[in-house]
């Protein structure tokens, strides 16, 4: 197990390295000079040169990359051009908010997804099965930013039950676990949960149907085990894959939260990215994407290791 973890870690290292290169190059993809956004239009050549030297843009690219990487490895993601605050502190505040929202959405999606998946897998071709299939097609086909708008229209604009935007009553950027703050979370969390719900329902349905058709289930029943006992076996067999998918979905939600967070003005990474893009705040853009992508790499690693630990049938080669 330890050997497998180390091997997997070794495999993740070049990927993490590649991710850092992509994030570094992002800034240089931008048309023109990365500094053009912050320099005044009538900047003189000497001013431009001064700034270029100050940000290190006068050095060759590989050297710039190594300097940047050195700083990143020491926890320095640079200074936000728009706010003048360190990127790391801006990103970490936002990541916490996004992580709360994405986790709640994943839990909702996972709970209902497994529920529908189990019912559908147990009763193939029944009404419930068709409903679960419809749900999964709905989940992957619906533009979630539009679903968010529709929920706001119904529950905020028309019924007035829930607040349409923000993370709390005082307009603060920090979420706290109390009833007032919870009300702000319901709509964005439900909106976000629809995608993983569909995917998990589809996967669990296929898993359960496959497990039920295997010989060991028949053997258990022949042995005289009651349905509750058989159900426990089905759950144990389906759990590793279902949990792995849940982990990956959390990563996708965290990385893909920008659209939903924009609709609900949720003060997370998506919101931060949106601000960074439109203020041409490239260090902030670069830093947020690096943090999110690294989180995703780490999550993939964790999911792989956990799945192997949970499921003894997977080769730990």
């Amino acid at each position: 197990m330890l050997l497998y973890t180390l091997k997997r870690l070794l495999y993740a290292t070049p990927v993490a390295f590649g991710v850092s290169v992509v994030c570094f190059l992002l800034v240089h993809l931008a048309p023109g000079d990365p500094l053009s956004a912050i320099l005044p239009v009538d900047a003189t050549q000497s001013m431009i040169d001064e700034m270029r030297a100050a940000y290190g843009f006068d050095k060759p690219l590989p050297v710039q990359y190594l300097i940047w990487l050195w700083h990143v490895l020491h926890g320095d993601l640079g200074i936000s051009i728009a706010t003048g605050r360190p990127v790391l502190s801006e990103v970490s505040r936002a990541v916490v908010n996004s992580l709360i929202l994405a986790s709640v959405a994943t839990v909702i999606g996972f709970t209902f997804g497994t529920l529908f998946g189990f019912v559908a897998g147990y009763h193939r071709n029944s009404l419930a099965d068709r409903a679960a299939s419809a749900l999964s097609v709905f989940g992957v086909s619906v533009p979630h930013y539009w679903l968010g708008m529709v929920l706001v229209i119904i529950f905020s604009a028309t019924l007035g039950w829930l607040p349409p935007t923000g993370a709390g009553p005082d307009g603060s950027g920090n979420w706290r676990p109390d009833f007032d703050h919870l009300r702000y979370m319901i709509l964005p969390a439900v909106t976000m949960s629809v995608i993983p719900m569909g995917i998990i329902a589809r996967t669990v349905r296929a898993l359960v149907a496959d497990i039920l058709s295997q010989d060991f289930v028949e053997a258990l029943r022949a042995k005289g085990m009651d349905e509750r006992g058989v159900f426990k076996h089905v759950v144990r067999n389906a759990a590793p894959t279902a949990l792995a998918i849940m982990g990956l979905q959390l990563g996708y939600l965290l990385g893909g939260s920008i659209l939903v967070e924009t609709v609900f003005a949720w003060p997370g990474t998506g919101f931060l990215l949106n601000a960074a893009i439109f203020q041409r705040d490239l260090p902030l853009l670069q830093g947020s994407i690096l943090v999110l992508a690294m989180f995703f790499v780490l999550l993939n690693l964790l999911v792989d290791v956990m799945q192997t630990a949970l499921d003894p049938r997977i080769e730990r080669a």
Partner: protein
Amino acid sequence: MTAPVTAASIALDGGVLAAEDVAHGPEAAFVPSRGFWGHVGHRLVRDPVAMGAGAVILLVVLIALLSPWITPMDPYKGSMLRRLRHVGDATYWLGSDELGRDMISRLMLGSRLSLFIGVTPVLIAFVIGSGIGILAGYVGGWTNTILMRTIDVFFAFPSVLLAIALSGALGAGIFNSIVSLTCVFVPQIARVAESVTTGIRKRDYIDAAKLSGASALTIMRVQVLGNVVGPIFVYSTSLISVSMILASGLSFLGLGVRPPEPEWGLMLNTLRTAIYVNPVVAALPGVCIFLVSIAFNLFSDGLRAAMEIRQ
């Protein structure tokens, strides 16, 4: 009580058979094979869900092609006096937007850009991704390692994040949003193409082609491409739905199409301010994205099911 086999009964049976043969003509004895794609098409036609989805796609494509000539009103002409009319209005059948422009005309014309920015990235990624995947799968060895490990790096980004990061860095615009989405789908298609190609490279017909003296390029073009293009194509069609949602999403964020061009994602964004005044009209562009996206998903599912022919 078995009837004795007599010469007469044999003659009678034989006679009947002969009569049948004549009745059906010589074609009945030889049923021409439909071929693989013929079978796929035949099964697809019998799938009502896939056919319904296909009809929706066809309708939207037709509207997109014809929209400059068939919109009931000028999609760009606004009127501040007639803004945010409701659905069912005598002049504006589907209401009017925040600048008083006719919604149905804008939705019809909007289908052009929405389809274009949604489908184009998948088409380009299909060509590039298949190329990379087939090359990596057929050549194998170091080429495979280098290409596929590079592809792995892009898998470290959730697709929405990658699309937004790229188009955020490149700046707003239709061209940039197509480039970013293409970069999102190339790795996904390449990975599928690689695994399908690796699966067939050891087959006998590849060896036979090698022995016949065909060059690697010819084998890849003829033997490999012919056998892997189907699965890659089906996989690519399943990406169109995601691509439509993401492309309109980029416009929704202000990173894709720029006003006053009508595009569903962008329309959804500009109508957000109107959700308290006219919620139904504000939600309409999203309904269009949803319908097309679900149609592509169902059609792709049907195509996949039709191609799973047990042999």
